[in-house]
Protein backbone atom coordinates (compact mmCIF):
# COMPACT_ATOMS: atom_id res chain seq x y z
CA UNK A 1 0.00 0.00 0.00
CA UNK A 2 1.78 3.08 -1.20
CA UNK A 3 -0.48 5.82 0.03
CA UNK A 4 -1.09 8.44 2.67
CA UNK A 5 -4.20 7.73 4.63
CA UNK A 6 -5.99 10.17 6.89
CA UNK A 7 -8.36 8.30 9.17
CA UNK A 8 -11.12 9.85 11.28
CA UNK A 9 -9.00 12.82 12.20
CA UNK A 10 -10.38 15.26 14.77
CA UNK A 11 -8.78 18.47 16.03
CA UNK A 12 -10.04 20.47 18.98
CA UNK A 13 -8.55 23.80 19.93
CA UNK A 14 -8.94 25.10 23.45
CA UNK A 15 -10.47 28.54 23.48
CA UNK A 16 -8.88 31.38 25.34
CA UNK A 17 -10.36 32.20 28.72
CA UNK A 18 -12.83 29.33 28.68
CA UNK A 19 -12.52 26.64 31.29
CA UNK A 20 -12.29 23.69 28.96
CA UNK A 21 -14.25 25.43 26.22
CA UNK A 22 -13.26 23.87 22.94
CA UNK A 23 -13.56 24.61 19.29
CA UNK A 24 -13.69 21.65 16.95
CA UNK A 25 -11.73 22.79 13.89
CA UNK A 26 -11.66 19.43 12.14
CA UNK A 27 -14.40 16.89 12.71
CA UNK A 28 -13.86 13.30 11.64
CA UNK A 29 -12.13 13.76 8.30
CA UNK A 30 -10.94 10.72 6.33
CA UNK A 31 -9.39 10.39 2.90
CA UNK A 32 -6.61 8.61 1.08
CA UNK A 33 -3.99 10.33 -1.00
CA UNK A 34 -2.63 8.07 -3.72
CA UNK A 35 0.51 8.47 -5.84
CA UNK A 36 -0.15 10.33 -9.06
CA UNK A 37 -3.51 11.63 -7.87
CA UNK A 38 -4.55 15.10 -6.78
CA UNK A 39 -7.27 15.74 -4.26
CA UNK A 40 -8.53 19.29 -3.90
CA UNK A 41 -9.71 20.39 -0.49
CA UNK A 42 -12.07 23.33 -0.90
CA UNK A 43 -13.76 25.55 1.65
CA UNK A 44 -13.94 29.06 3.04
CA UNK A 45 -11.56 30.61 5.56
CA UNK A 46 -12.01 28.92 8.89
CA UNK A 47 -13.47 25.72 7.48
CA UNK A 48 -10.55 23.71 8.83
CA UNK A 49 -8.77 22.92 5.59
CA UNK A 50 -5.44 24.38 6.66
CA UNK A 51 -5.66 22.54 9.99
CA UNK A 52 -5.96 19.29 8.04
CA UNK A 53 -2.84 20.26 6.10
CA UNK A 54 -0.94 21.15 9.25
CA UNK A 55 -1.82 17.84 10.86
CA UNK A 56 -0.58 15.94 7.83
CA UNK A 57 2.61 17.99 7.90
CA UNK A 58 2.91 17.19 11.62
CA UNK A 59 2.71 20.79 12.64
CA UNK A 60 -0.35 19.99 14.76
CA UNK A 61 -1.19 16.83 16.62
CA UNK A 62 -4.67 15.42 15.98
CA UNK A 63 -6.93 15.20 19.04
CA UNK A 64 -8.00 11.80 17.79
CA UNK A 65 -7.70 9.75 14.63
CA UNK A 66 -4.55 8.79 12.80
CA UNK A 67 -2.46 9.42 9.74
CA UNK A 68 -1.02 6.34 8.06
CA UNK A 69 1.86 6.35 5.60
CA UNK A 70 1.98 3.22 3.45
CA UNK A 71 -0.34 1.54 5.92
CA UNK A 72 1.80 2.25 8.95
CA UNK A 73 0.99 4.67 11.73
CA UNK A 74 3.08 7.82 11.39
CA UNK A 75 5.34 9.07 14.13
CA UNK A 76 5.08 12.37 15.91
CA UNK A 77 8.72 12.74 16.90
CA UNK A 78 12.28 11.48 16.58
CA UNK A 79 13.88 9.49 13.77
CA UNK A 80 10.59 8.09 12.64
CA UNK A 81 9.24 11.60 12.13
CA UNK A 82 12.31 12.44 10.04
CA UNK A 83 11.62 9.50 7.80
CA UNK A 84 7.96 10.53 7.55
CA UNK A 85 9.13 13.94 6.41
CA UNK A 86 11.30 12.39 3.70
CA UNK A 87 8.02 11.41 2.16
CA UNK A 88 5.57 14.16 3.02
CA UNK A 89 6.34 17.82 2.40
CA UNK A 90 4.40 21.03 2.37
CA UNK A 91 4.21 24.10 0.16
CA UNK A 92 2.88 27.11 2.04
CA UNK A 93 0.59 29.86 0.87
CA UNK A 94 2.79 32.88 1.23
CA UNK A 95 6.12 32.69 -0.62
CA UNK A 96 7.02 36.06 0.87
CA UNK A 97 6.89 34.66 4.39
CA UNK A 98 7.96 31.06 3.90
CA UNK A 99 11.46 31.82 2.64
CA UNK A 100 14.07 33.30 4.94
CA UNK A 101 15.09 36.73 3.62
CA UNK A 102 18.50 36.27 5.19
CA UNK A 103 19.53 33.22 3.20
CA UNK A 104 20.28 32.50 -0.42
CA UNK A 105 18.16 30.22 -2.57
CA UNK A 106 20.98 27.70 -2.48
CA UNK A 107 20.80 27.63 1.31
CA UNK A 108 17.05 26.99 1.21
CA UNK A 109 17.61 23.91 -0.92
CA UNK A 110 20.83 22.78 0.71
CA UNK A 111 19.21 22.41 4.14
CA UNK A 112 16.67 19.75 3.22
CA UNK A 113 19.23 17.98 0.98
CA UNK A 114 21.65 17.64 3.88
CA UNK A 115 19.05 16.99 6.57
CA UNK A 116 17.59 14.16 4.56
CA UNK A 117 20.95 12.74 3.47
CA UNK A 118 20.39 13.41 -0.20
CA UNK A 119 23.74 15.12 -0.60
CA UNK A 120 26.88 14.96 1.50
CA UNK A 121 29.65 16.83 -0.27
CA UNK A 122 29.55 20.39 -1.56
CA UNK A 123 29.83 19.10 -5.10
CA UNK A 124 26.81 16.89 -4.57
CA UNK A 125 24.85 19.78 -3.11
CA UNK A 126 25.76 22.00 -6.06
CA UNK A 127 24.68 19.37 -8.50
CA UNK A 128 21.39 18.64 -6.75
CA UNK A 129 20.53 22.31 -6.25
CA UNK A 130 21.09 22.92 -9.95
CA UNK A 131 18.97 19.92 -10.81
CA UNK A 132 16.12 21.04 -8.53
CA UNK A 133 16.14 24.59 -9.86
CA UNK A 134 16.12 23.28 -13.39
CA UNK A 135 13.12 21.13 -12.65
CA UNK A 136 11.15 24.17 -11.51
CA UNK A 137 12.31 26.24 -14.50
CA UNK A 138 14.52 28.63 -12.57
CA UNK A 139 17.41 29.13 -14.95
CA UNK A 140 20.28 29.94 -15.17
CA UNK A 141 20.51 27.86 -12.02
CA UNK A 142 23.96 29.10 -10.99
CA UNK A 143 22.85 32.72 -10.75
CA UNK A 144 19.44 31.97 -9.21
CA UNK A 145 21.08 29.86 -6.50
CA UNK A 146 23.09 32.84 -5.27
CA UNK A 147 20.17 35.21 -5.01
CA UNK A 148 18.10 36.00 -1.96
CA UNK A 149 14.30 35.78 -1.86
CA UNK A 150 13.72 39.52 -2.26
CA UNK A 151 15.43 39.41 -5.63
CA UNK A 152 12.80 37.03 -6.97
CA UNK A 153 9.19 37.61 -7.97
CA UNK A 154 6.33 35.93 -6.10
CA UNK A 155 6.01 33.23 -8.74
CA UNK A 156 9.73 32.52 -8.70
CA UNK A 157 9.69 32.30 -4.92
CA UNK A 158 6.86 29.82 -4.98
CA UNK A 159 8.90 27.74 -7.43
CA UNK A 160 11.74 27.75 -4.92
CA UNK A 161 9.28 26.61 -2.24
CA UNK A 162 8.19 23.77 -4.50
CA UNK A 163 11.80 22.80 -5.21
CA UNK A 164 12.46 22.82 -1.47
CA UNK A 165 9.52 20.48 -0.90
CA UNK A 166 10.85 18.12 -3.56
CA UNK A 167 14.41 18.17 -2.22
CA UNK A 168 13.98 15.35 0.34
CA UNK A 169 12.49 13.17 -2.40
CA UNK A 170 8.94 13.63 -1.15
CA UNK A 171 6.23 11.39 -2.56
CA UNK A 172 3.35 13.40 -1.15
CA UNK A 173 2.93 17.15 -1.39
CA UNK A 174 0.55 19.20 0.69
CA UNK A 175 0.03 22.48 -1.15
CA UNK A 176 -1.85 24.98 1.02
CA UNK A 177 -3.22 27.66 -1.31
CA UNK A 178 0.01 27.61 -3.32
CA UNK A 179 -1.09 30.21 -5.85
CA UNK A 180 -3.56 32.45 -4.06
CA UNK A 181 -0.90 35.08 -3.32
CA UNK A 182 0.35 35.12 -6.90
CA UNK A 183 -0.71 37.23 -9.83
CA UNK A 184 -3.40 35.68 -11.94
CA UNK A 185 -1.27 35.64 -15.03
CA UNK A 186 1.30 33.36 -13.41
CA UNK A 187 -1.02 31.19 -11.32
CA UNK A 188 -1.69 28.78 -14.11
CA UNK A 189 1.96 28.34 -14.97
CA UNK A 190 2.79 27.47 -11.34
CA UNK A 191 -0.09 25.01 -11.22
CA UNK A 192 1.02 23.52 -14.50
CA UNK A 193 4.51 23.18 -13.14
CA UNK A 194 3.12 21.30 -10.14
CA UNK A 195 1.17 19.06 -12.49
CA UNK A 196 4.29 18.28 -14.52
CA UNK A 197 6.36 17.47 -11.45
CA UNK A 198 3.52 15.33 -10.21
CA UNK A 199 3.54 13.33 -13.43
CA UNK A 200 7.32 12.98 -13.46
CA UNK A 201 7.58 11.80 -9.85
CA UNK A 202 4.18 10.19 -9.49
CA UNK A 203 3.44 12.51 -6.58
CA UNK A 204 0.30 12.42 -4.51
CA UNK A 205 -0.90 16.00 -4.08
CA UNK A 206 -3.37 17.55 -1.67
CA UNK A 207 -4.31 20.87 -3.25
CA UNK A 208 -5.95 23.19 -0.75
CA UNK A 209 -7.76 26.14 -2.25
CA UNK A 210 -10.90 28.20 -2.21
CA UNK A 211 -10.81 28.58 -5.97
CA UNK A 212 -13.23 26.06 -7.39
CA UNK A 213 -12.22 26.69 -10.98
CA UNK A 214 -8.59 25.63 -10.54
CA UNK A 215 -9.66 22.84 -8.17
CA UNK A 216 -11.75 21.48 -10.96
CA UNK A 217 -9.03 21.62 -13.56
CA UNK A 218 -6.10 20.46 -11.49
CA UNK A 219 -7.50 17.68 -9.40
CA UNK A 220 -9.04 14.28 -9.83
CA UNK A 221 -11.23 14.54 -6.79
CA UNK A 222 -12.75 17.43 -4.85
CA UNK A 223 -13.60 17.42 -1.16
CA UNK A 224 -15.65 20.30 0.18
CA UNK A 225 -15.15 21.25 3.81
CA UNK A 226 -17.58 23.26 5.88
CA UNK A 227 -17.18 23.92 9.59
CA UNK A 228 -14.65 21.15 10.04
CA UNK A 229 -16.59 18.47 8.21
CA UNK A 230 -16.23 17.13 4.70
CA UNK A 231 -19.72 17.76 3.38
CA UNK A 232 -19.22 16.59 -0.18
CA UNK A 233 -16.66 14.61 -2.14
CA UNK A 234 -16.42 13.13 -5.58
CA UNK A 235 -14.74 13.31 -8.99
CA UNK A 236 -14.04 16.99 -9.77
CA UNK A 237 -16.33 17.38 -12.73
CA UNK A 238 -19.11 15.62 -10.92
CA UNK A 239 -18.90 17.92 -7.90
CA UNK A 240 -18.82 21.06 -10.04
CA UNK A 241 -21.51 20.06 -12.48
CA UNK A 242 -23.80 18.32 -10.10
CA UNK A 243 -23.28 19.65 -6.57
CA UNK A 244 -25.36 17.90 -3.92
CA UNK A 245 -24.73 19.76 -0.69
CA UNK A 246 -26.20 23.22 -0.13
CA UNK A 247 -22.84 24.60 0.85
CA UNK A 248 -21.18 23.40 -2.36
CA UNK A 249 -23.98 25.09 -4.28
CA UNK A 250 -23.41 28.28 -2.32
CA UNK A 251 -19.68 28.17 -3.04
CA UNK A 252 -20.34 27.64 -6.71
CA UNK A 253 -22.82 30.48 -6.92
CA UNK A 254 -20.43 32.79 -5.06
CA UNK A 255 -17.51 32.26 -7.45
CA UNK A 256 -17.20 35.13 -9.92
CA UNK A 257 -18.34 34.07 -13.33
CA UNK A 258 -18.12 36.37 -16.35
CA UNK A 259 -21.11 34.57 -17.82
CA UNK A 260 -23.23 36.25 -15.15
CA UNK A 261 -22.51 39.71 -16.45
CA UNK A 262 -25.03 42.20 -15.12
CA UNK A 263 -27.02 39.56 -13.29
CA UNK A 264 -25.93 40.71 -9.86
CA UNK A 265 -27.22 44.16 -10.62
CA UNK A 266 -30.54 42.85 -11.82
CA UNK A 267 -30.88 40.71 -8.73
CA UNK A 268 -30.11 43.62 -6.48
CA UNK A 269 -32.59 45.87 -8.27
CA UNK A 270 -35.29 43.23 -8.14
CA UNK A 271 -34.61 42.74 -4.46
CA UNK A 272 -34.82 46.47 -3.79
CA UNK A 273 -38.07 46.73 -5.67
CA UNK A 274 -39.47 44.07 -3.42
CA UNK A 275 -38.30 46.12 -0.50
CA UNK A 276 -36.29 43.21 0.79
CA UNK A 277 -33.13 43.64 2.77
CA UNK A 278 -30.23 41.62 1.37
CA UNK A 279 -31.92 38.32 1.98
CA UNK A 280 -29.23 35.73 1.84
CA UNK A 281 -27.05 37.30 4.49
CA UNK A 282 -26.04 34.81 7.12
CA UNK A 283 -27.23 31.84 5.21
CA UNK A 284 -25.22 29.04 6.79
CA UNK A 285 -24.17 31.50 9.45
CA UNK A 286 -20.96 32.13 7.56
CA UNK A 287 -18.98 34.39 9.76
CA UNK A 288 -19.16 38.03 8.78
CA UNK A 289 -20.82 37.45 5.45
Amino acid at each position, binding site marked *: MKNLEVKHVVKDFRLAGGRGRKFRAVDDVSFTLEPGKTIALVGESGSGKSTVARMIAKLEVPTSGEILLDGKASATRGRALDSYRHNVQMVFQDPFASLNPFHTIRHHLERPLRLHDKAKTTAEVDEQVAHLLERVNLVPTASVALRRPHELSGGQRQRVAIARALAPGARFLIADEPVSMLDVSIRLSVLNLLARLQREDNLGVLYITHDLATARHFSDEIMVMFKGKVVERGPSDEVIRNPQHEYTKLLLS*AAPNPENQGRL*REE*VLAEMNLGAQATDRDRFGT*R*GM
Partner: protein
Amino acid sequence: MNASLDLQSASQRIPGNFGASHGQEPVLTAHDISITYEVEPPVHAVKNVSLTLHRGEILGLAGESGCGKSTLAYGLNQLLKPPALLRSGDVTFHDQGGTDIDVVGLEGDALRAFRWDKISMVFQGAMNSLNPVITVRAQLFDVFTTHRPGMSKKEKEERSQELLRQVGVDPSRLDSYAHQLSGGMRQRVMIAMALALNPQVMIMDEPTTALDVVVQRGILRELMRLRETFGFAVIFITHDLPLLLEISDRIAVMLRGEIVELNSAANIYARPQHEYTQRLLGSFPSLTGDRGAFIRTGEAI
Protein backbone atom coordinates in the same frame (compact mmCIF):
# COMPACT_ATOMS: atom_id res chain seq x y z
CA MET B 1 -22.54 71.67 4.82
CA ASN B 2 -25.19 70.41 7.14
CA ALA B 3 -25.15 66.68 7.75
CA SER B 4 -28.86 66.19 8.14
CA LEU B 5 -29.49 68.06 4.91
CA ASP B 6 -27.03 65.77 3.26
CA LEU B 7 -28.86 62.75 4.55
CA GLN B 8 -32.12 64.04 3.26
CA SER B 9 -30.86 64.54 -0.21
CA ALA B 10 -29.49 61.03 -0.12
CA SER B 11 -32.77 59.47 0.81
CA GLN B 12 -34.56 61.46 -1.86
CA ARG B 13 -32.59 59.75 -4.56
CA ILE B 14 -34.68 57.02 -6.01
CA PRO B 15 -33.30 53.52 -6.15
CA GLY B 16 -32.41 52.44 -9.63
CA ASN B 17 -32.61 55.96 -10.92
CA PHE B 18 -28.98 55.84 -11.96
CA GLY B 19 -29.41 52.87 -14.22
CA ALA B 20 -30.46 54.96 -17.16
CA SER B 21 -28.45 58.09 -16.63
CA HIS B 22 -24.98 56.84 -15.83
CA GLY B 23 -22.57 56.62 -18.69
CA GLN B 24 -23.36 60.17 -19.71
CA GLU B 25 -22.32 62.77 -17.20
CA PRO B 26 -18.68 62.71 -16.06
CA VAL B 27 -17.92 63.00 -12.36
CA LEU B 28 -14.15 62.68 -12.51
CA THR B 29 -11.86 63.36 -15.45
CA ALA B 30 -8.19 62.61 -15.45
CA HIS B 31 -6.12 63.86 -18.31
CA ASP B 32 -2.64 62.77 -19.31
CA ILE B 33 -1.57 61.55 -15.87
CA SER B 34 2.07 60.54 -15.43
CA ILE B 35 3.39 59.37 -12.09
CA THR B 36 7.02 58.60 -11.39
CA TYR B 37 8.69 57.06 -8.38
CA GLU B 38 11.71 59.28 -7.90
CA VAL B 39 14.18 56.56 -7.10
CA GLU B 40 17.35 55.62 -8.89
CA PRO B 41 16.61 54.73 -11.66
CA PRO B 42 13.18 56.48 -11.76
CA VAL B 43 10.20 54.15 -12.13
CA HIS B 44 7.53 55.42 -14.49
CA ALA B 45 4.57 53.82 -12.75
CA VAL B 46 1.81 55.57 -14.67
CA LYS B 47 2.34 56.85 -18.19
CA ASN B 48 0.04 59.41 -19.82
CA VAL B 49 -3.21 57.93 -18.63
CA SER B 50 -6.47 59.66 -19.42
CA LEU B 51 -9.65 58.42 -17.84
CA THR B 52 -13.23 59.58 -17.45
CA LEU B 53 -15.45 58.28 -14.71
CA HIS B 54 -19.16 58.76 -15.21
CA ARG B 55 -21.66 59.47 -12.49
CA GLY B 56 -22.93 56.28 -10.88
CA GLU B 57 -20.91 53.82 -12.93
CA ILE B 58 -18.62 51.06 -11.76
CA LEU B 59 -15.34 51.31 -13.59
CA GLY B 60 -13.11 48.28 -13.20
CA LEU B 61 -9.36 48.78 -13.24
CA ALA B 62 -7.65 45.48 -13.99
CA GLY B 63 -4.02 44.51 -14.11
CA GLU B 64 -1.42 42.57 -12.21
CA SER B 65 0.75 43.70 -9.31
CA GLY B 66 3.12 46.43 -10.26
CA CYS B 67 1.16 47.64 -13.29
CA GLY B 68 0.44 50.98 -11.62
CA LYS B 69 -3.24 50.60 -10.89
CA SER B 70 -3.01 51.48 -7.19
CA THR B 71 -0.58 54.30 -7.94
CA LEU B 72 -3.05 55.74 -10.43
CA ALA B 73 -5.87 55.54 -7.88
CA TYR B 74 -3.77 57.31 -5.28
CA GLY B 75 -2.92 59.96 -7.85
CA LEU B 76 -6.61 60.64 -8.51
CA ASN B 77 -7.15 61.41 -4.85
CA GLN B 78 -3.85 63.24 -4.32
CA LEU B 79 -2.69 60.63 -1.86
CA LEU B 80 0.74 60.06 -3.38
CA LYS B 81 3.60 60.08 -0.97
CA PRO B 82 7.24 60.70 -1.90
CA PRO B 83 9.08 59.22 -3.70
CA ALA B 84 5.93 59.02 -5.86
CA LEU B 85 5.42 62.22 -7.80
CA LEU B 86 2.71 63.36 -10.15
CA ARG B 87 4.83 64.56 -13.08
CA SER B 88 2.07 65.80 -15.29
CA GLY B 89 -1.62 65.76 -15.91
CA ASP B 90 -4.71 67.16 -14.33
CA VAL B 91 -7.62 65.70 -12.43
CA THR B 92 -10.95 67.47 -12.44
CA PHE B 93 -13.80 66.61 -10.14
CA HIS B 94 -17.20 67.68 -11.42
CA ASP B 95 -19.19 68.40 -8.29
CA GLN B 96 -22.90 67.75 -8.11
CA GLY B 97 -23.61 71.46 -7.78
CA GLY B 98 -22.00 72.04 -11.17
CA THR B 99 -18.69 73.48 -9.99
CA ASP B 100 -15.49 71.90 -11.21
CA ILE B 101 -12.71 71.23 -8.73
CA ASP B 102 -9.10 71.03 -9.82
CA VAL B 103 -7.93 68.17 -7.59
CA VAL B 104 -4.23 68.53 -8.32
CA GLY B 105 -4.30 72.18 -7.30
CA LEU B 106 -5.86 71.53 -3.88
CA GLU B 107 -3.74 72.11 -0.82
CA GLY B 108 -4.00 72.15 2.95
CA ASP B 109 -7.48 72.60 4.39
CA ALA B 110 -9.20 72.62 1.01
CA LEU B 111 -7.62 69.27 0.19
CA ARG B 112 -8.53 67.85 3.58
CA ALA B 113 -12.13 68.97 3.15
CA PHE B 114 -12.25 67.49 -0.34
CA ARG B 115 -10.93 64.08 0.51
CA TRP B 116 -13.47 61.62 1.88
CA ASP B 117 -16.24 64.15 1.34
CA LYS B 118 -16.21 63.94 -2.45
CA ILE B 119 -13.97 60.94 -3.08
CA SER B 120 -13.59 58.28 -0.44
CA MET B 121 -11.44 55.22 -0.49
CA VAL B 122 -11.56 51.63 0.65
CA PHE B 123 -8.00 50.49 1.02
CA GLN B 124 -6.27 47.28 0.17
CA GLY B 125 -5.93 44.88 3.06
CA ALA B 126 -9.22 44.71 4.93
CA MET B 127 -7.35 43.20 7.82
CA ASN B 128 -5.18 46.13 8.75
CA SER B 129 -6.67 49.39 7.60
CA LEU B 130 -8.71 49.95 10.75
CA ASN B 131 -7.10 51.43 13.83
CA PRO B 132 -6.60 48.54 16.26
CA VAL B 133 -6.66 50.56 19.47
CA ILE B 134 -9.91 52.51 19.15
CA THR B 135 -13.47 51.29 18.68
CA VAL B 136 -15.41 51.35 15.44
CA ARG B 137 -17.53 54.15 16.95
CA ALA B 138 -14.48 56.30 17.64
CA GLN B 139 -13.29 55.86 14.08
CA LEU B 140 -16.63 56.78 12.56
CA PHE B 141 -16.99 59.74 14.92
CA ASP B 142 -13.55 60.86 13.83
CA VAL B 143 -14.80 61.22 10.26
CA PHE B 144 -17.71 63.40 11.41
CA THR B 145 -15.64 65.50 13.79
CA THR B 146 -13.28 66.35 10.95
CA HIS B 147 -15.77 66.91 8.17
CA ARG B 148 -19.04 67.81 9.87
CA PRO B 149 -18.01 69.82 12.92
CA GLY B 150 -21.59 70.97 13.46
CA MET B 151 -22.95 67.52 14.21
CA SER B 152 -24.10 66.78 17.73
CA LYS B 153 -23.13 63.63 19.52
CA LYS B 154 -26.63 62.26 19.12
CA GLU B 155 -26.59 62.88 15.38
CA LYS B 156 -23.23 61.18 15.07
CA GLU B 157 -24.46 58.18 16.99
CA GLU B 158 -27.59 57.90 14.86
CA ARG B 159 -25.70 58.30 11.64
CA SER B 160 -23.08 55.72 12.70
CA GLN B 161 -25.75 53.19 13.54
CA GLU B 162 -27.49 53.84 10.25
CA LEU B 163 -24.23 53.34 8.35
CA LEU B 164 -23.54 49.99 9.96
CA ARG B 165 -27.08 48.89 9.21
CA GLN B 166 -26.63 49.90 5.60
CA VAL B 167 -23.60 47.66 5.19
CA GLY B 168 -25.19 44.77 7.02
CA VAL B 169 -23.35 44.93 10.33
CA ASP B 170 -25.24 44.95 13.60
CA PRO B 171 -25.11 48.48 15.12
CA SER B 172 -24.05 46.99 18.45
CA ARG B 173 -20.70 46.41 16.78
CA LEU B 174 -19.94 50.11 17.20
CA ASP B 175 -18.39 49.13 20.52
CA SER B 176 -16.10 46.56 18.91
CA TYR B 177 -12.42 46.83 18.17
CA ALA B 178 -11.09 45.69 14.80
CA HIS B 179 -9.70 42.41 16.10
CA GLN B 180 -13.14 41.42 17.35
CA LEU B 181 -14.52 41.49 13.82
CA SER B 182 -14.10 38.93 11.07
CA GLY B 183 -12.36 39.91 7.83
CA GLY B 184 -15.65 40.37 6.03
CA MET B 185 -17.08 42.53 8.80
CA ARG B 186 -13.95 44.68 8.91
CA GLN B 187 -14.27 45.32 5.21
CA ARG B 188 -17.96 46.18 5.66
CA VAL B 189 -17.00 48.66 8.37
CA MET B 190 -14.45 50.15 5.97
CA ILE B 191 -17.21 50.55 3.40
CA ALA B 192 -19.44 52.17 6.04
CA MET B 193 -16.67 54.66 6.75
CA ALA B 194 -16.26 55.35 3.06
CA LEU B 195 -20.02 55.98 2.80
CA ALA B 196 -20.14 58.23 5.84
CA LEU B 197 -20.17 61.54 3.99
CA ASN B 198 -22.14 60.44 0.95
CA PRO B 199 -19.24 60.74 -1.47
CA GLN B 200 -19.84 60.96 -5.19
CA VAL B 201 -16.91 58.69 -5.97
CA MET B 202 -15.58 55.69 -4.09
CA ILE B 203 -12.21 54.22 -4.97
CA MET B 204 -11.88 50.59 -3.91
CA ASP B 205 -8.41 49.11 -4.01
CA GLU B 206 -8.58 45.31 -3.96
CA PRO B 207 -11.39 45.43 -1.38
CA THR B 208 -12.12 41.71 -1.39
CA THR B 209 -8.80 40.13 -2.29
CA ALA B 210 -8.09 38.82 1.20
CA LEU B 211 -11.59 37.39 1.64
CA ASP B 212 -12.99 34.07 0.55
CA VAL B 213 -15.56 33.78 -2.22
CA VAL B 214 -18.69 33.55 -0.10
CA VAL B 215 -17.83 36.61 1.98
CA GLN B 216 -16.71 38.39 -1.18
CA ARG B 217 -20.06 37.72 -2.81
CA GLY B 218 -21.86 39.22 0.20
CA ILE B 219 -19.78 42.37 0.00
CA LEU B 220 -20.18 42.77 -3.75
CA ARG B 221 -23.92 42.40 -3.37
CA GLU B 222 -23.92 45.06 -0.67
CA LEU B 223 -21.83 47.36 -2.85
CA MET B 224 -24.19 46.96 -5.79
CA ARG B 225 -27.16 47.69 -3.56
CA LEU B 226 -25.54 50.79 -2.06
CA ARG B 227 -24.55 52.02 -5.49
CA GLU B 228 -28.16 51.76 -6.66
CA THR B 229 -29.36 53.54 -3.53
CA PHE B 230 -26.87 56.39 -3.40
CA GLY B 231 -25.68 56.60 -6.97
CA PHE B 232 -21.99 57.04 -6.26
CA ALA B 233 -19.46 56.06 -8.90
CA VAL B 234 -16.92 53.37 -8.13
CA ILE B 235 -13.40 52.74 -9.34
CA PHE B 236 -12.90 49.09 -8.50
CA ILE B 237 -9.29 47.95 -8.61
CA THR B 238 -8.47 44.26 -8.72
CA HIS B 239 -6.62 41.64 -10.69
CA ASP B 240 -9.66 39.39 -10.64
CA LEU B 241 -10.98 39.91 -14.16
CA PRO B 242 -13.93 37.49 -13.88
CA LEU B 243 -15.14 39.48 -10.88
CA LEU B 244 -14.84 42.77 -12.76
CA LEU B 245 -16.64 41.32 -15.75
CA GLU B 246 -19.52 40.46 -13.49
CA ILE B 247 -19.95 43.78 -11.71
CA SER B 248 -18.46 46.56 -13.85
CA ASP B 249 -20.06 48.78 -16.41
CA ARG B 250 -16.73 49.50 -18.06
CA ILE B 251 -13.28 47.98 -17.62
CA ALA B 252 -9.86 49.52 -18.11
CA VAL B 253 -6.99 47.08 -18.49
CA MET B 254 -3.62 48.37 -17.33
CA LEU B 255 -0.24 47.08 -18.35
CA ARG B 256 3.09 48.62 -17.35
CA GLY B 257 1.59 51.97 -16.44
CA GLU B 258 -0.60 52.35 -19.47
CA ILE B 259 -4.25 51.67 -20.11
CA VAL B 260 -4.09 49.29 -23.03
CA GLU B 261 -7.78 48.72 -23.39
CA LEU B 262 -10.91 50.46 -22.16
CA ASN B 263 -14.32 49.21 -23.09
CA SER B 264 -17.67 48.07 -21.76
CA ALA B 265 -17.52 44.89 -19.72
CA ALA B 266 -19.53 43.08 -22.36
CA ASN B 267 -17.10 44.04 -25.11
CA ILE B 268 -14.03 43.20 -23.05
CA TYR B 269 -15.44 39.74 -22.48
CA ALA B 270 -16.75 39.06 -25.95
CA ARG B 271 -14.21 40.92 -28.08
CA PRO B 272 -10.98 41.65 -26.23
CA GLN B 273 -8.79 43.66 -28.61
CA HIS B 274 -5.43 43.83 -26.91
CA GLU B 275 -3.25 40.76 -26.74
CA TYR B 276 -2.70 41.27 -23.01
CA THR B 277 -6.44 41.39 -22.28
CA GLN B 278 -6.82 38.13 -24.15
CA ARG B 279 -4.02 36.60 -22.15
CA LEU B 280 -5.52 37.85 -18.88
CA LEU B 281 -8.89 36.36 -19.81
CA GLY B 282 -7.15 33.12 -20.69
CA SER B 283 -5.52 32.82 -17.29
CA PHE B 284 -8.84 32.04 -15.63
CA PRO B 285 -9.94 28.49 -16.17
CA SER B 286 -13.66 28.29 -16.64
CA LEU B 287 -15.74 27.03 -13.78
CA THR B 288 -18.73 25.79 -15.67
CA GLY B 289 -17.60 25.53 -19.27
CA ASP B 290 -16.18 22.49 -20.99
CA ARG B 291 -13.02 20.99 -19.70
CA GLY B 292 -11.62 21.46 -23.20
CA ALA B 293 -11.33 25.16 -22.54
CA PHE B 294 -8.39 24.45 -20.32
CA ILE B 295 -6.47 21.24 -19.86
CA ARG B 296 -4.02 20.21 -17.20
CA THR B 297 -1.13 20.10 -19.59
CA GLY B 298 1.67 19.80 -17.10
CA GLU B 299 3.64 22.25 -19.20
CA ALA B 300 4.49 25.81 -18.38
CA ILE B 301 2.47 28.18 -20.51
